[in-house]
């Protein structure tokens, strides 16, 4: 089977790319791409919180999504809430009461799967910021196309031909717990569970990519320091 962008396998993901600490003024930042889909995430915090948003026993997490073109719409609001609710459980917010964690997501290039790309970018940015966390989130999307095939990490062309679109995020504990499931279209329970399973396996690849990326950066910093 040949896919529109030259991939040969339905389970093949597009190439990942990531860079960390690319913004100077944020406490943490990262860029993540699935093929052409690219997102920059920045994290500021723990910082001072507005009294209105203050929570006495934990940090307030705020996610702001900036679209690639135009002004934010309600579509971005939906994305903001999904992202916040996905990454919030991974942050040890109880360690930073009465503070604000502000996450800004700037969409750079759109070619499908913005939700999953943004989850991965935020995870990397939070690592860079050094926020205390209990786990890490990684997300993958899949579609069921009109012919009933399950395709992982669809591009925008494939999305046009989708009968349902599924995005799942998992944490990095040994059981890979489900953090987010956002699925829309028409599908059966079996198809849902198939997608869940396929994305779970694929998310392990994203997790190991994030791990390698962070390991490489830290090792590089260390070696430069000790090369004397």
């Amino acid at each position: 089977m040949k896919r529109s962008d030259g991939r040969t396998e339905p389970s093949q993901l597009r190439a990942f790319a990531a860079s960390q600490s690319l913004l100077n003024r944020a406490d943490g930042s990262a860029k993540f791409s699935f093929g052409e889909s690219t997102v920059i995430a920045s994290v500021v915090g723990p910082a001072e919180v507005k009294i209105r948003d203050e929570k006495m026993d934990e940090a307030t997490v705020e996610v702001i999504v900036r679209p690639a073109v135009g002004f934010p719409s309600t579509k971005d609001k939906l994305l903001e809430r999904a992202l916040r609710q996905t990454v919030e459980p991974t942050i040890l917010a109880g360690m930073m009461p009465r503070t604000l964690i502000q996450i800004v997501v700037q969409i750079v290039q759109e070619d499908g799967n913005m939700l999953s790309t943004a989850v991965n970018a935020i995870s990397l940015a939070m690592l860079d910021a050094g926020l205390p966390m209990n786990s890490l989130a990684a997300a993958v999307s899949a579609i069921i196309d009109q012919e009933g095939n399950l395709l992982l990490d669809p591009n925008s062309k494939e999305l046009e031909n989708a009968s349902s679109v599924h995005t799942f995020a998992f944490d990095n504990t040994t059981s890979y717990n489900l953090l987010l499931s956002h699925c829309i279209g028409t599908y059966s329970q079996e198809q849902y569970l198939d997608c869940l399973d396929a994305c779970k396996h694929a998310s392990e690849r994203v997790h190991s990519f994030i791990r390698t990326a962070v390991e490489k950066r830290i090792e590089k910093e260390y070696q430069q320091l000790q090369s004397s």
Partner: protein
Amino acid sequence: MTSDLKVVLPGDLISVNNESDESSMNVDDDVPLVRLGPGLTQVQEDIVSMKAGVLKHQDPGNKWWLESNQRRYVAATGESVIGIVVARLAEYYRVDIGGAQAAILPVLAFEGATKKNKPNLVPGTLVYARISLANKDMEPELQCFNPSSGKADGYGELKGGFVIRCSLGLCRRLLNPETPILRFLGEHFPFETAVGMNGRIWVNSENPQYTILLANAVKNSEYLSEAQCKAMVESLIDKL
């Protein structure tokens, strides 16, 4: 040392008892004592990391901690910081130390300060202070004297000079008097520094040219090896 660098990510389980090391095992089959430092926490029976960093272990005392770098300061008792006075109130000053909340510096927390005789700091003043109290639920409190001696010991207002911002990791390294960058710079001209653990470094010398050079050299030294530091310092000096 560098060969077995162990990088961990949040959520990783840390096996602290795998090596049947005599020193870490108590007699009988008691659970050995483990001391956890920054970045590690206990979740039920397991030791779990909370940050991305390098896992470190010290045999005496069986201490484990994570060495990680970040830019945002989280106040901890006993650390020295550089703050900027942002407001003056009757009982205390509010000082920005780069954390989530501004810190409190009581007007009497200076060497020899009394109700009648106390320093007058205007907003914008730089102070070098020690965190006397830090708690996640409260604003941090500062003091400008060493509690063991009651003397200023260098704490107090910083006059003149220049403050640069850098990562917390670089600050920690600069506190080591053997840090190459400070040693190389010291070979060329005399200068003063105060390193705050909150990612701020104050530098001062007898003339502004040197101060600018100092600031640039320290800022750029974060990812440089000893040899590269030496080369950078020399090229900067040559350009003077």
